[in-house]
């Protein structure tokens, strides 16, 4: 691929030229492709496989002003044992909380699951770099092994790509061994061209994962946005050899939607990405729908919402 030779360093002009020189995204075409993949019919054994895989990919999330230690402990219990009636149900990938609740979450889950913290003045990202770095360092010190940072959308939209880049590099350093997920907040970037550029920018700066949304802005994750991000990680791997994950977060509530995302992953980047190490769902209510469908596949009938736990 021609991109390898021309990957930019941190030089602002080179970076800008590179990002603006990426192939455009035709929105009508991308939306059409995502819609056509959503018509795949996933039944029986492949549905069972997809449901378990989706459960293992969930970052079970609570990001509310009203979060308390009690709420977080309940969430952690659910993360480890999503369906108490069926011990064969896999655990989720991670719990995702605000930084000040990381210690509670870590104590609750031990080493049995990842603890992800949102950091860097989530969700708006409107704070100084020093504050963002401190936010990150605190979360890592409290036991977070995954950091979900937000990019500075204001800087991105004003064309100051270097500022966004430098910030990601600095946060990545503050993460130490913790995995860094970079939230693009695609609902504020608006165009798919921007989504492609922001994806490359985050990956060049060292992101381990690129993530669609905070969940606080509508629209959050959509299939076309996720498609463009998957194409970006695929092309980035071809260009650099480095493999980056994708997290679709916000607005995914049903099993049907989740399975459609797995189809999107399967047919865009292939099976390599069909693992919790490289694809995640950021969600809260999705898990219970997955569990209801899982019970249905097992028993042959639908139970009701009282047969899954609310946490």
């Amino acid at each position: 691929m021609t991109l390898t030779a021309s990957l930019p360093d941190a030089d602002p002009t080179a970076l800008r030229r590179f990002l603006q020189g990426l192939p455009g995204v035709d929105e009508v075409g991308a939306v059409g492709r995502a819609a056509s993949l959503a018509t795949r019919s996933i039944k029986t054994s492949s549905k069972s496989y997809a449901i378990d895989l989706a459960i293992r990919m969930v970052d079970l999330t609570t990001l509310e002003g009203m979060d308390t230690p009690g709420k977080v402990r309940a969430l952690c219990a659910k993360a480890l044992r999503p369906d108490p009636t069926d011990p064969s149900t896999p655990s989720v990938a991670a719990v995702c909380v605000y930084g000040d609740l990381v210690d509670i979450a870590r104590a609750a889950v031990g080493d049995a699951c990842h603890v992800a913290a949102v950091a860097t003045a989530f969700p708006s990202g409107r704070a100084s770099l020093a504050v963002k770095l401190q936010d990150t360092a605190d979360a890592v010190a409290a036991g977070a092994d995954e950091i979900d940072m937000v990019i500075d959308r204001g800087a991105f939209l004003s064309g100051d790509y270097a500022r966004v880049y430098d910030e990601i590099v600095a946060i990545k350093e503050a993460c130490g061994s913790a995995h860094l997920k970079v939230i693009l907040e695609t609902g504020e970037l608006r165009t798919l061209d921007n989504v492609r550029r922001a994806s490359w920018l985050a990956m060049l700066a060292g992101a381990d994962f690129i993530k669609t949304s905070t969940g606080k802005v509508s629209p959050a994750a959509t299939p076309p946005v996720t498609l463009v991000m998957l194409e970006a990680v695929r092309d980035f791997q071809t260009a650099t050899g480095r493999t980056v994950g994708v997290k679709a977060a916000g607005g995914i509530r049903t099993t049907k939607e989740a399975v459609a995302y797995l189809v999107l992953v399967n047919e865009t980047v292939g099976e390599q990405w069909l693992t919790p190490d490289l694809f995640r769902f950021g969600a809260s209510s999705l898990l219970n729908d997955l569990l209801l469908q899982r019970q249905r596949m097992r028993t042959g009938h639908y139970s009701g919402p009282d047969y899954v736990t609310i946490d």
Partner: protein
Amino acid sequence: MTFEYAPAPESRSIVDIADAYGLFIDGQFVDPADGRTFPTVNPATEEILSTVAEAGQQDVDRAVRAARRAYEQVWGPMSGRDRGKYLYRIARLLQERSRELAVLETLDNGKPIREARDVDLPLVAAHFFYHAGWADKLEHAGFGPAPRPLGVAAQVIPWNFPLLMLAWKVAPALACGNTVVLKPAETTPLTALAFADICRQADLPPGIVNILTGAGDTGRMLVEHPDVDKVAFTGSTAVGQQIMRGLAGTSKRLSLELGGKAANIVFDDAPVDEAVEGIVNGIFFNQGHVCCAGSRLLLQESVADEVLTSLQRRLSTLRLGDPLDKNTDIGAINSAAQLERIHELADSGDAEGATRWTAPCPLPDRGYWFPPTVFTGVTQAHRIAREEIFGPVLSVLTFRTPDEAVEKANNTPYGLSAGIWTEKGSRILWMAQRMRAGVVWANTFNRFDPTSPFGGYKESGFGREGGIQGLGPYLDSDVVDHEATVRIGFGVTEVAR
């Protein structure tokens, strides 16, 4: 463990195929006068689906007589509003029965159910709805103050989109007040016969729509029948030329929609991922059995390798197999004869020095199949760059400048469609003005809509189907004289472009 999609077949039980079908003449199914029949086959399994009648001269006479009487006594004198009422009713019935018709189309044609369900059937209904709206507004369509129908239309359609081609022919003819005798292709008669049933269900008076099944001879008898006023044909250029010769010296009006060898042109500033989708949709949609298929891919040399790599990766994900499976992308080739023609032309590509790449799809044991195939290193001199293959075979050529792209794209006896892929709007307009093709798609391909006229330049035929322009070939008016179908078709389309 890998993410295998379990089989997800659409249920076949929704269709009820009779053991044998007669001819639909004057509102009834009747046996052919000389009792001849032929089988129709599911090309995915080679199973015989049913036996249909082969119409002979007597049957053609009978059908044209019925159409003439219906034209003179019922449909011609009927008000546009009442004609529209019947057309709306037919459109609604097509929608209501769309699942059944999609399954039937897939069984008889071999196309994937996903396409029959999501493309063919919605367009079929849309065509009837659109033309139903025109039925009482013809005096405002720009064909003079009182355009009149022509009379009896003889219509012969191909096997690639059986019901959709029927809709393209029957809907405008009926909306304009003509009656029709239609002959579906011999390999795909079943949905046309189901449409006959829908006409009865809609209480359409007898004789307005007549369906004659048969092969080439039946078609020839029909178009050459002296009491036919209008002939509309969609099919191969060779047959179109025969029809035109046969009609020379008569007063019959003619519109032809024939073959194509469309160029799909990708510039170096194209949206690559979407262009790859467009290339796939351009040539592998409906197994490439599409007259406007983007069968010649013209790549700007500076991005040729990159696009080809992406294309091959994408083609490796195509799912070929049981057309009734909802996850199938590539279905069966419609007939043994067509499969043989595809093999013959593809082999000529090898012989003439092009490089063949085949998508890694296993082929089923029974039925007629051809894997998605890409030839690189093709030049304008190769047969696979000049002749219509009508199968899932893409010929890749390269160009250096926009002028060269125009020159190569137009350098074909055909002129049905073209595709342009670039993020630069001014270049799209510059190219579209220079394409000698009836339809030019920009950053998309194989998109159809009943409001948009469709038809060809040069050996791709003349006359337009769809849009206001598509009414012209079925109307007699102050501005349309007996030879003017061609001029109207071209003139209006060029203005619209």
